[in-house]
């Protein structure tokens, strides 16, 4: 494992990106930060700028207008960067598979490391997903 990746996994900072979601996943992500779940204990922090982020949490069904922005933002993330697809919309488009405005799932646009299915996934599921992500890339 590269030194860069090792440093990243010690305290992964997450950036949350909504590509046309229904708010549920975004609210549940924020829920992870509030007292009952409180993932800040483990060094995870929601950051305001994409340039500070190590992990990209993408929610929503990747509609045509957001995809342009998503590509621009992905180019701006310092690499290595890990991508988590939160929610069924991002993974397989779920209910929106027939929609004219949601052409492709997220993994056709940018590489995805972990999928967290659910509509919306519970905060416990999200925390489990991040733990799996850390294990996958060889962390503690």
């Amino acid at each position, binding site marked *: 494992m590269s030194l860069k990746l090792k440093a990243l996994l010690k305290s992964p900072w997450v950036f949350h990106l909504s*590509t046309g979601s229904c708010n549920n996943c*975004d609210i549940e992500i924020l*829920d992870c930060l509030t007292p009952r779940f409180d993932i800040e204990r483990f060094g995870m922090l929601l950051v305001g700028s994409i340039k500070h982020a190590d992990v990209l949490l993408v929610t929503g069904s990747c509609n045509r207008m*957001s995809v342009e922005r998503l590509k621009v933002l992905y180019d701006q993330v310092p690499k290595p960067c890990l991508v988590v697809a939160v929610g069924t919309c991002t993974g397989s488009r779920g209910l929106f598979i027939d*929609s004219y405005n*949601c052409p492709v799932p997220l993994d056709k646009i940018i590489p995805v490391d972990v999928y967290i299915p659910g509509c919306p996934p*519970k905060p416990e599921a999200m925390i489990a997903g991040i733990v799996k992500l850390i294990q996958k890339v060889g962390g503690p």
Partner: protein
Amino acid sequence: MGKTIIPIGPYHPLLEEPELFTLTVDGETVVDIDMRMGYNHRGIEKLSEGMTFENSTFVVERICGICSTSHPFAYTRAVEDIFPMVVSMRAKYIRTIIAEGERIHSHLLWLGLAGHFLGYNTLYMWAWKLREEILDVMEILSGNRNSYAMFKPGGVRRDIKTEDIPICIKKINSILPTLNMLKKAVIDDPVLHARLKGIGVLSYQDAIDFSALGPTSRASGVARDARKDSPYGAYQEMDWNMIVTQNGDVFDKAVVRILEMFEAAKIMKYCLNNLPDGEIDAKIKDVPPGEGIGHVEAPRGETFHYVKSDGTNRPVRHKVRAPTFMNLPTYKATVIGQTISDATIILAAIDPCYCCTERVAVKNDRGKMLYNGQDLVGLSREKTEKIRRRMVGR
């Protein structure tokens, strides 16, 4: 000093959802704003027209995660409006319980985020901690934390078990003291008074002119509430108060929302205590041709659904009007002349929900969205001009 343009968004730490606001400022004062939407458009109305009446309930539930009760509620009411049918009292009570639970969790969420925007993070954490309790109640009742999937045309999908009722009432009672503490923390705080009073005032006349809805209008003294004006569900069965304040500033909007939570808890407790017996589902077989409307007071204002049926098992036309569609233009009336530091809290005060609102997107053939509000108005004027010329020519 010249004018400066400040873009907020589309991906901004302040906004949950992607949205682009362009503030034109002169020094510290906001002179003009422009909004650009469409980042959340998913084509829900079209999707709904391709699904059966029963399946459309799940599509409209995904319009917005926070209002995931009010959209299905309004939709089922619209379908029930097409032909005369009777929904059982038990189903109505269960619907009311779920709708009021959603109101409490949505207002708590708003209160937390408003505190966060003001740099009052203690309030944020307290409100969201309290919100978990009400989400537990919803999980006991429906099995889900959000997106409850309780509604279907003609009734509800799940019954409430008798043994769950005392647990829910106990939980609701246990949050009331903390809610009281939060109320005091906001209403008696001198800092919040200094920060929020007289900020972003929406006058009574403006609230009427913009057709503001929900807490945004009730804070300006307009007593408008779909639950009182045209009662649905079980709201006419009990006594509850419509909260109306007069000043129309951000502080009053917060007060309206906080006091509404107590009313919602009261309604929930009454319904749980007096849940009548009976069937929960009217078992609709066919929907005859016709059209129906349904409106429901969502936490943010009145949600309106229109459904047209041609006798098949799918809606021919399904139209959604979310409350933010009416409330967002009031931002223009309230923010101009205020300082840029207040712009965020004034926007937050209307509790905007863009994913509810985005029903239309315009594209040109290169695949980029180009039209903003002014362009659309320009297009509309052009069309009027064309029609006028044609009429004169004839």
